[in-house]
């Protein structure tokens, strides 16, 4: 069927048949075409057939599924697309129920909606899951129409189905991407021209800028100036050549704060390599850096004051020494110790003590020049390194002293601890050093020793360490090791000094320790007792003294003539403070079987310096055994009368310093009078020591003193001589 064209250019439809006419040899000589014109009816029919074919083609090959069901829901017609989804041939499908190809859940939904569909005659956008022969699930969106007869009975239904599988996947990918985008890492997306198109919440939090402020800008807005142009050039070269870059970058937040972050930048490219976007992720690592710093701080800084600790001080000292060796200049080490720090802790509590230390640290730092170091070694001990002082040691010392005085002055200003005003002083020891100085540990020791000197010199002052003092220290340490040795080698002896009453009758003795040094003969207790106190050897030595004295008492008690003699034994504060001291006394008294009332322990006033309550309690415990107490060196310390009254004392001993000048110094006489009067008022016995002349004795007796001790009656002597003296 084709169209022919007339002479007048109109056309007509005709059905043509052509055939070939051949000659004897088989060559085609003519083509004969017979054409039958088509009437309008035949033309229409032909057109309908063609149209039906076209529709059939569209139906079959449309990008959506079509099917028709009979009134029972069985498939009567289905298009090729839907068959392809199901992976079935038409024969396998026709006659089957459509819901046989749904997942269980979809079948339920289908059956649930079916009555409504029948009622309304149509349904739109119902989501189903279609299961193919291969088990593959396809998300489809279906719309269906019901065809009914005149009575409203269902004849059939038709449905069109759209494949939503890919769309669903994209949707879920998008949802996933949206969730992933809002992570704790900052994410920033720019176009190919570095104009910022998208940022996530984390990025706004990291940068401090709102999304509004960022979108449309370029990442240059975050620059801190920390990196130079070459840095950014290298970064872009890497991105352009490899597609990505990562590294640490220091940016500036909106607040102005410069912070480090770990950044990765990736180029997003089309298949042809054209860059469409850049995506960067930003991780704020300032916290990490802070942690790193914190670790360093813990290792090298005192957490309370943020000052260098001992370890860092030693490092700085090492560098200072190296610099001094190089430049020929000098330096100084200052050791600073607060004079009354302990009382802050005791009276205001440790929290206030900490506040004080922090304030002290601030004040000390304010006194320093750049390049100097102040460190805290512990408690209230601060050490300062002054570098680059004058090459002349004397000049350097003057400079160091100036700094030290500045520090004393600033520390003398009141501190405000909470609401309390607190006044403090400090003692400073200075060791000046130059290139010839050996050993940094010694240097620290020197400054410490000088500081102790300052304390002894009355506090709130500065002392220098000098070589002469070093010598004294050296010989001291020799003595210390010899002292340890002395106990083992039994180099101690007791000497006894007679004590008499006002009728000059022997009434007792004071046991005094003597150290017979193998090389030096007798060493004065004034020389070795302080060392024994500091080293703790006094505990052992004191125990030996007490034991030896009690042994002597037990000997005396065997003899009618000596059985009433009192023996005084000196007890150091350190020994007295031993928790088991009362037990020790009890054990020794029992072991020797002595009359405890003949034993007298001499304590010095220094014992009352702190924790008086526990001292009183120990004294009472010992006193309960019958042992008596005498307060030695009375008048030299700062006894509080209030405490004195509470002590179970038997005797006061007037210090020999008052006795010495008694005959020439009126004020000493007045003091002695007062002491005796006070002692009597407290019902205490009074003994004077260091009595050397009759004149002294008479003045003391006049004042009311009843007992005496001194060279006038006998020097301290070995027991053998003492026995002779008693005769």
């Amino acid at each position: 069927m084709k169209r022919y064209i007339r002479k007048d250019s109109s056309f007509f439809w005709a059905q043509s048949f052509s055939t070939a006419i051949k000659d004897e040899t088989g060559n085609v000589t003519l083509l004969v075409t017979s054409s039958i014109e088509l009437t309008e009816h035949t033309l229409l029919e032909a057109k309908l057939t063609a149209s039906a074919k076209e529709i059939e083609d569209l139906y079959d090959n449309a990008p959506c599924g079509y099917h028709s069901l009979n009134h029972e829901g069985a498939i009567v017609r289905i298009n090729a697309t839907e068959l392809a989804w199901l992976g079935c041939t038409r024969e396998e499908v026709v006659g089957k129920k459509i819901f046989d190809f749904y997942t269980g859940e979809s079948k339920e939904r289908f059956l649930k909606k079916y009555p409504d569909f029948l009622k309304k005659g149509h349904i739109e956008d119902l989501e189903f899951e279609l299961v193919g022969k291969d088990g593959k699930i396809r998300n489809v969106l279906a719309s269906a129409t019901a065809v009914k007869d005149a009575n409203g009975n269902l004849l059939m239904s038709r449905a069109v189905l759209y494949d939503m599988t890919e769309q669903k996947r994209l949707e879920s990918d998008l949802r996933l991407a949206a969730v992933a985008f809002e992570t704790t890492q900052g994410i920033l997306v720019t176009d190919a021209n570095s104009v910022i198109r998208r940022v996530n919440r984390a990025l706004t939090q990291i940068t401090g800028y709102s999304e509004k402020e960022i979108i449309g800008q370029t990442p240059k807005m975050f620059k801190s100036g920390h990196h130079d142009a070459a840095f950014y050039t290298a970064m872009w070269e890497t991105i352009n050549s490899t597609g990505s870059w990562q590294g640490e970058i220091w940016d500036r937040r909106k607040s102005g704060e410069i912070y480090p972050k770990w950044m990765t930048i990736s180029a997003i490219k089309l298949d042809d390599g054209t860059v469409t976007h850049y995506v960067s992720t930003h991780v704020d690592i300032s916290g990490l850096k802070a942690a790193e710093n914190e670790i360093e701080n813990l290792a090298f800084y005192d957490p309370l004051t943020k000052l260098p600790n001992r370890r860092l001080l030693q490092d700085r000292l090492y560098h200072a020494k190296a610099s001094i060796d190089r430049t020929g200049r000098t330096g100084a080490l200052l050791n600073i110790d607060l004079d009354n720090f302990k009382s802050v802790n005791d009276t205001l509590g440790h929290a206030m003590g900490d506040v004080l230390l922090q304030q002290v640290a601030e004040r000390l730092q304010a006194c320093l020049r750049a390049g100097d170091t102040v460190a805290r070694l512990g408690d209230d001990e601060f050490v300062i390194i002054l570098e680059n002082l004058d090459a002349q040691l004397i000049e350097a010392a003057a400079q160091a002293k100036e700094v030290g005085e500045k520090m004393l002055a600033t520390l003398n200003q009141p501190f405000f601890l909470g609401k309390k005003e607190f006044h403090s002083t400090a003692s400073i020891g200075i060791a000046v050093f130059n290139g010839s100085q050996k050993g940094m540990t010694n240097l620290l020791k020197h400054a410490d020793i000088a500081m102790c000197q300052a304390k002894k010199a009355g506090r709130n002052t500065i002392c220098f360490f000098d070589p002469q003092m070093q010598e004294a220290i050296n010989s001291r340490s020799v003595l210390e090791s010899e002292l340890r040795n002395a106990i083992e080698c039994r180099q101690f002896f007791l000497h006894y000094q007679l004590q008499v009453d006002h009728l000059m009758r022997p009434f007792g003795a004071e046991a005094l320790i003597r150290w017979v040094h193998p090389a030096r003969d007798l060493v004065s207790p004034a020389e070795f007792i302080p060392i024994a106190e500091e080293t703790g050897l006094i505990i052992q030595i004191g125990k030996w003294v007490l034991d030896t004295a009690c042994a002597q008492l037990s000997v005396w008690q065997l003899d009618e003539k000596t059985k009433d003699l009192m023996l005084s034994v000196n007890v150091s504060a350190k020994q007295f403070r031993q928790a088991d001291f009362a037990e020790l006394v009890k054990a020794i008294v029992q072991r020797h079987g002595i009359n405890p009332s003949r034993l007298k322990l001499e304590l010095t006033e220094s014992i009352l310096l702190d924790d008086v309550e526990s001292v009183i309690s120990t004294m009472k415990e010992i006193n309960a055994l019958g042992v008596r107490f005498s307060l030695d060196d009375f008048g030299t310390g700062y006894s509080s009368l209030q405490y004195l009254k509470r002590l179970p004392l038997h005797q006061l001993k007037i210090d020999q310093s008052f006795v010495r000048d008694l005959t020439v110094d009126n004020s000493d006489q007045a003091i002695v009078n007062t002491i005796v009067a006070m002692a009597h008022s407290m019902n205490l016995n009074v003994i004077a020591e260091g009595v050397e002349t009759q004149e002294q004795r008479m003045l003391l007796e006049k004042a009311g003193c009843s007992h005496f001790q001194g060279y006038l009656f006998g020097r301290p002597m070995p027991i053998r001589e003492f026995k002779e003296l008693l005769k």
Partner: protein
Amino acid sequence: MQVLPNQFREIFDKSPVCMIATDPLNGRIVLANSRAIKMWGYTPDEILTKTKADLIFPDDFAESSQRNTQLVSGMVDLCAL
């Protein structure tokens, strides 16, 4: 009985169907019956100056010419279009 050429000529001319015969080489019309002459609207002389291409609607010519080729080559003896 033998059909004479003038009788054959009359059968051809009086057929109620349009009939044309063409030269298989150039498609020139060599014979056209009265019905054909009437349908196409040419005079008997005019139509003999035309080729098949002049008579067919241009959009349909390609298919027609393809069929002719098949006839000439002997691939088919008859074709309907």
